[in-house]
């Protein structure tokens, strides 16, 4: 019925608004981009204004996995396990050139982009990216979350599994 569709979209808008302004990042910090992550969380470029300030250093309680820095093959198992431990809904941000595509390390030790191991929602290029770029990425992700469908009612289909 049209009324049900209208109510579902309003529900999606509300849930999207709530979810986008209360992101709990899990900063999976490995390398130099971690310094920029520290800068972007601090006072000059604040992520707290976007609701994305409080890092939860456990995958069980976080919904945004920020892969900050280079992922090596030794670390890839760890990141896959952490991604699997997170509950839906979850998003992944590839922070920096190394997480996006391996950066300028094209050798035996580095995974050429973390999207070879986990699905990524938003890529932030830069080596390391400026804090403003990270904030831009968070805002883009928030737009995507706001416009997304959020099937939380029992009558709705759950979203397809991304592996």
């Amino acid at each position: 019925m049209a009324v049900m569709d209208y109510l579902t979209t309003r529900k999606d808008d509300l849930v999207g608004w709530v979810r986008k302004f209360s992101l709990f990042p899990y900063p999976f910090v490995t390398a130099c981009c971690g310094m920029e992550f520290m800068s972007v969380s601090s006072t000059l470029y604040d992520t707290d204004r976007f609701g994305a300030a409080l890092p939860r250093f456990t995958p069980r309680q976080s919904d945004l996995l920020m892969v900050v820095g280079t992922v090596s093959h030794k670390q890839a198992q760890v990141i896959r396990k952490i991604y699997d431990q997170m509950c839906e809904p979850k998003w992944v941000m590839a922070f920096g050139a190394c997480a996006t595509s391996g950066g300028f390390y094209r050798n035996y030790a580095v995974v050429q982009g973390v999207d070879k191991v986990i699905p990524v929602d938003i890529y932030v290029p830069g080596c390391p990216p400026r804090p403003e770029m990270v904030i831009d990425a968070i805002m883009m992700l928030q737009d995507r979350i706001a416009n997304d469908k959020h099937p939380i009612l029992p009558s709705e289909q759950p979203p397809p599994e991304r592996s």
Partner: protein
Amino acid sequence: MPTFYEAIVDRLGPRCLRTWDSHGMLVLDIDASQLLVVVEALKADFGCALFLDVTAVDYPARQPRFDVVYHFLAPAQMQRVRLKLQVDEHAAEVPTLTGLFGSARYMEREVHDMYGIRFAGNADLRPILLYEGFEGHPLRKDYAMEHEQPIVPYRT
């Protein structure tokens, strides 16, 4: 009054194959069998209390293939000494320095990981920068740089 380097060459020169100066640093070229004696003498008599580094260089066209290079620092005189020895690829074994210097543990593990040179007496030669299941030794000249060995299967 001999200088620090002259004293070392006087005392340990007979045990070395060659000694020379490299940009102001004394280099001793020794045989692997003399390693422990020379290092003990450097530590006990010449004050080389800080073991800085061990690494290896690969010359695949040469026999013996590897050059194992040690660096020591004497903090009191602030002078450094380099030790070099040559190791064959098929008998790639060198005595360990873990009995004299604790810092040798990790550095020897790294050389083993990267080049495949064993350190006799170091019981802990697990991979340190790489992981178990990695085949080959990356810093050898015949290991292709882009040859990756992923553990996690790639998606798509």
